[in-house]
């Protein structure tokens, strides 16, 4: 099942957030998932050539969640898109579940690879894009990174490799919420302006609103300029959709339980 253009997107996105908050009773990282869920939904429902029918094909489009700690968003989207039995979400983070707090390797066909160690996804995605070109596939490779993740030196190795090889079937997406695990990004790296860095590495750079579903579908879906990898900086709000979680660092860590859970679900219902 895919979620096409004639669906009430606001309701779909709200239900994804509801699933995330429900899962987050058992783990941290709720604000991370709420930050990137609209991006992942736009990719799976509107952009990628990927459905439950072609999920095992190698020549389809591919997505790597490099910021693996945002996986509740991915699980919710996969369940909604028919890639996972929605009842599996109830097992999230429980012993014996295939839905761990970082994606497991090789268990769910729609999950390309295990991630969670930051800084790995971009180089893998670049290699996949190069491999697709060598094999003459039309597939595009999308990879979602955190802005904090861009601290990792290996991100820049991947960025250089992709630019050197002119991988115009590769799209990196930065969840640009400005907050990393212990502080605002601007405090950790005050002299770093990420879009300038990516541009200096030879990438085509774009910015867009990371919570505007229609805008995301349009920007992410358009082809790259010939011969260049593209990065889309998505302006996002960490904890988006639940006002008391928004831009509040505590919700990087805190499970959503008891009164918090009721309040968070209530905020979604009110929206």
């Amino acid at each position: 099942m895919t979620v096409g253009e004639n669906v009430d997107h606001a309701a779909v996105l709200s239900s994804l957030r509801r699933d995330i908050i429900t899962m987050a009773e058992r783990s941290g990282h709720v604000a991370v998932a709420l930050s990137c869920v609209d991006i992942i939904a736009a990719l799976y429902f509107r952009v990628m050539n990927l459905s439950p029918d072609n999920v095992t094909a190698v020549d389809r489009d591919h997505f790597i969640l490099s910021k693996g700690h945002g996986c509740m968003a991915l699980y919710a989207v996969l369940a909604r898109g028919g890639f996972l039995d929605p009842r599996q979400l109830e097992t999230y983070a429980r012993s014996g579940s295939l839905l761990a707090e970082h994606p497991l390797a090789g268990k769910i066909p729609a999950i390309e690879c295990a991630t969670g160690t930051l800084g790995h996804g971009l180089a893998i995605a670049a290699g996949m894009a190069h491999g697709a070109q060598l094999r003459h596939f039309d597939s595009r490779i999308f990879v979602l990174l955190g802005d904090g993740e861009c601290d990792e030196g290996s991100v820049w190795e991947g960025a250089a490799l992709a630019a050197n090889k002119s991988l115009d079937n590769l799209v990196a997406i930065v969840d640009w919420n400005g907050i990393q695990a212990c502080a605002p990004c601007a405090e950790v790296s005050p002299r770093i302006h990420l879009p300038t860095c990516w541009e200096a590495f030879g990438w085509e750079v774009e910015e867009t609103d990371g919570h505007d579903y229609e805008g995301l579908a349009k920007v992410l879906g358009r082809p790259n300029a010939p011969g260049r990898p593209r990065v889309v900086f998505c302006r996002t709000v960490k904890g988006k959709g639940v006002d008391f979680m928004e831009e509040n660092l505590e919700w990087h860590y805190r499970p959503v339980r008891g009164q918090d859970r009721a309040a968070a679900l209530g905020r979604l219902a009110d929206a």
Partner: protein
Amino acid sequence: MRDAFFCELLTLFKEDERVVFLTGDLGYKLFDPLRDHDPSRVINCGIREAGMIGYAAGLAKSGMLPFVYSIVPFATLRCLEQIKIDLCYNRNRVVIVGVGGGFAYGPNASTHHGVEDLGIVGTLPGMTVWTPADPREVRRCVCAAPALSGPAYLRLGRNQEPTIHDVHAAIGIDKPFLIGEPKDGVIVTCGFILHEVLQAVKVLNDNGIRPAVLRLATLRPFPDAEIRELIESGKPVLTVEEHVAPGGLGQQVAVLVAEGGRGNRFGTLSIPLSFPETCMSRETLMTWAGLDREAIAAAFTRLTTGG
């Protein structure tokens, strides 16, 4: 070993269009024949080993068969987490080729020595580890790559290792092979230090001591069963490795000796856990480490005479 690797890789590269060669900007002129045949499958990743491993993982996911080449420490420790997660955990068939195992890059000093690689890489689940002893075994490792189901690490020396002219290399790399009769015990070894071990055996034979040599071209999966069978006799066992003791061959064989309970006299020879203080050739380093033929012969003699 290096020339044997590139020569055999060229054959495979021509036969199998899935083969991609990636280098961390090393191997000047050595991969030119590959590039002359098909430049699209030769990728100089630059000095970006972590990125190169991830990139190779992505190529493997697309159905390609990547060989990744660098000097041992850069191809292993520098990018260890990428090897663990991108290759082993995510089960991507990539062959990591480390040139200069052990003290092969002697005077280049400790930055370029690869003396802990096998122990560290060998802890990673799903990794095949090849320790060929000579150019012929290197070729067999390259030929075995298409049949792999996951990643492999191939530890090369440089280019000075002699071909060891016995019949065993022709047989295969999967199983350990016994050279000689274990009349007075066995020396277990892996990799190109085999040449030194065989020289030590000549010294021992001249003194009337006749050990067999067990050579391991495949260190992972570890051949537990074959070694258990061999030490069943209760005769002396000596391990010799161009590697530090932790995580190495000796410690693994020691466990089997202890579990076997046959009371084998047992010794290990390995590289000391310290950085050499001065510049040394490989030959000098082997003496410094107590791994030259005289030291090997003396160690086995002590085991047989109870000294």
